[in-house]
């Protein structure tokens, strides 16, 4: 068992995991937000991430350092999200959640195709030229770009939390999340809140995407894993529990990294999904004892 032969790998795996996890967490924020506020599960999440990545990649292609791509990715996706809401998503907000799942699925495959047409399906990546740091005399290796993305996503996460606490819009969003009708009565323009919530979600995905572009590789059809993981994270954390999202995001990342060592990388997705099912069933069984069910 390699983890025992090389004990340092455990720490290594943990660190790698946390760094991947931080990006997942960022994506999961958006999902938790949209899910909590608008009761929509946004299946297009992963595609937003990849698209954000391509925006950064485009910037990089212009010979600009990719980190300057981050604001562009965020803004572009923010705007796109806003537009998509005004065109499509608002039609499904008050409908059965299942409808919204399908609608956003439709959006996702459209985005995939457009990315394929515009950027081609070549595997791409944006080079930062950041170095590598070695710890414990070369037993631990960290790509600085990962550390960077870790820091950025943590900052992003905290920024979101504060935005929600302090800004006027943030408070409106929280109010709407708690009780849309009440909020409406108190004069909150929920339509506007929804639109911005969705836009912010897309923006966050964009930011995460630009980190993905720098840290990993891009491909128009690689979005699903991000959607899936944000599902997981949100479900583990529970809705409207932003710090929980961060925690479970990091946790999932680490868990996954270890699973890659223990049961093999090819099972990552399978592992995640099985975990999802097991968690759901376990929780429902526990509630069933109280004669209740997951709501």
């Amino acid at each position: 068992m390699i983890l025992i032969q090389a004990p340092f790998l455990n720490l290594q795996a943990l660190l790698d995991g946390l760094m991947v996890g931080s990006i997942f967490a960022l994506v999961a924020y958006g999902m938790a937000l949209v899910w909590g506020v608008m009761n929509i599960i946004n299946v297009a999440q992963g595609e937003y991430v990849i698209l954000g990545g391509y925006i950064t990649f485009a910037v990089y292609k212009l010979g600009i350092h990719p980190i300057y791509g981050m604001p562009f990715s965020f803004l572009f996706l923010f705007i796109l999200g806003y537009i998509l809401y005004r065109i499509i998503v608002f039609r499904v907000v008050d409908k059965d959640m299942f409808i919204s799942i399908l609608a956003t699925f439709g959006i996702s495959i459209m985005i995939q195709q457009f990315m394929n047409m515009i950027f081609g399906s070549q595997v791409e990546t944006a080079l930062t030229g950041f170095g590598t740091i070695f710890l414990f005399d070369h037993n631990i290796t960290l790509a600085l770009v990962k550390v960077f993305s870790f820091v950025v996503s943590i900052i992003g996460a905290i920024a979101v939390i504060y935005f929600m606490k302090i800004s006027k819009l943030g408070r409106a969003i929280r109010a709407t999340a708690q009780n849309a009708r009440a909020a409406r009565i108190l004069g909150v323009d929920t339509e506007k809140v929804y639109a911005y919530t969705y836009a912010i979600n897309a923006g966050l995905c964009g930011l995460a995407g630009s980190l993905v572009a720098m840290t990993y590789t891009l491909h128009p059809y690689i979005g699903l894993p991000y959607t899936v993981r944000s599902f997981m994270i949100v479900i583990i954390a529970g809705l409207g529990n932003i710090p929980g999202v961060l925690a479970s995001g990091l946790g999932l990342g680490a868990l996954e990294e270890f699973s890659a060592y223990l049961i093999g990388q090819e099972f990552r997705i399978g592992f995640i999904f099985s975990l999802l099912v097991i968690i759901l069933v376990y929780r429902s069984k526990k509630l069933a004892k109280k004669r209740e069910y997951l709501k």
Partner: protein
Amino acid sequence: MKDKKEFTAIIAIIIAGIFLPSLMPVYRVQLSELWIFMVFASTWNIQGGKMGYNTFGNILFFGLGMYICASIQISYAFDLAEWTAAGGVKTFVHTVKQYFIGLPLGLLLAGIIPALIAGLLGSLILGLRGHYFAIGTLGIGIAAGEFATSVSIWGGGQGMTVPVWPKVDGQDLEILGGGMNFFYYLSFVLFIITFFVLRWLFSTRFGLILTAIRDNEDKAEAMGVPTMRYKVSGWVVSAFFMGIAGGIYGNINGYIEPTEVAFAGATFGVYMVLMTILGGKGTLWGPIIGALIFQVFKEFFWTFFLGWQLVALGFLIVVIVTFFPEGIMGWLRKNKPEWFGEVIDHKARLAQVKINTDD
């Protein structure tokens, strides 16, 4: 829906089903696919439509059925491992006898085993409600595909081929006009059986209780209905027919691959939902109409929107679910309620409740 009209519709379908392949032989593949799709939609409708449990997991039974059927067909005559191992240096040919014993055997088990699995899983998964159920089943479907990728006896990521239609001294065996026709009629018959079984099922107490569960599960429980039993039984029925459909589709396609052919959640898994919604959830005919229209559209896109077909499909999805969430039958039911045996007399609406105490 009025019996006479339904009767004509059934006759129309049966006639079409029998004569279409000879009318347009070159479309036999799409046509068999159409019947299979109708089975998809009709069985998905048991959960998603009648019962209000939107599942993404029914594809699991389809894939299982496909693999099981193929495995039985092969291992009845040869060693399965040898068959799948890099194609095997020697070529395997089924004799007519081997083929026609293996196939029905395979199809039968392809129905039964998934049904059993549905029974076992059901009691766990069907405890979930609403979108948690949707996500949970999605998980099962995809996980199944991912794990099948590493089952070496099934060729893992390599996939496996299905026995070819047997040859009699070099010539394809001529039963019902060769393999393609044979499997066309097989899928057609499967659909017809599924249709009548569901038609009967929905007319019984069972069907009504499913609707009751959709409308208000708590009430059903409070009235003493053991809902879990109904939910699981419903899933078992779906699993059975999905499994057989898988077995047939495997033979039509000739090649089985874990995530794209068998456990193809991203394509078939979503199609079956769309078809049902398009046609109208919770009705007997909705899924059938939905499947028909959907298949026509899909083929249309493939032909005329080369490279754009997925965009077109995505667009179609968005349009369907945002503008016609209650589907064609839903629309009809709104506008032609009498077709559904619903008397809408406004007298009744306005009528005051009166209880004459002197009886």
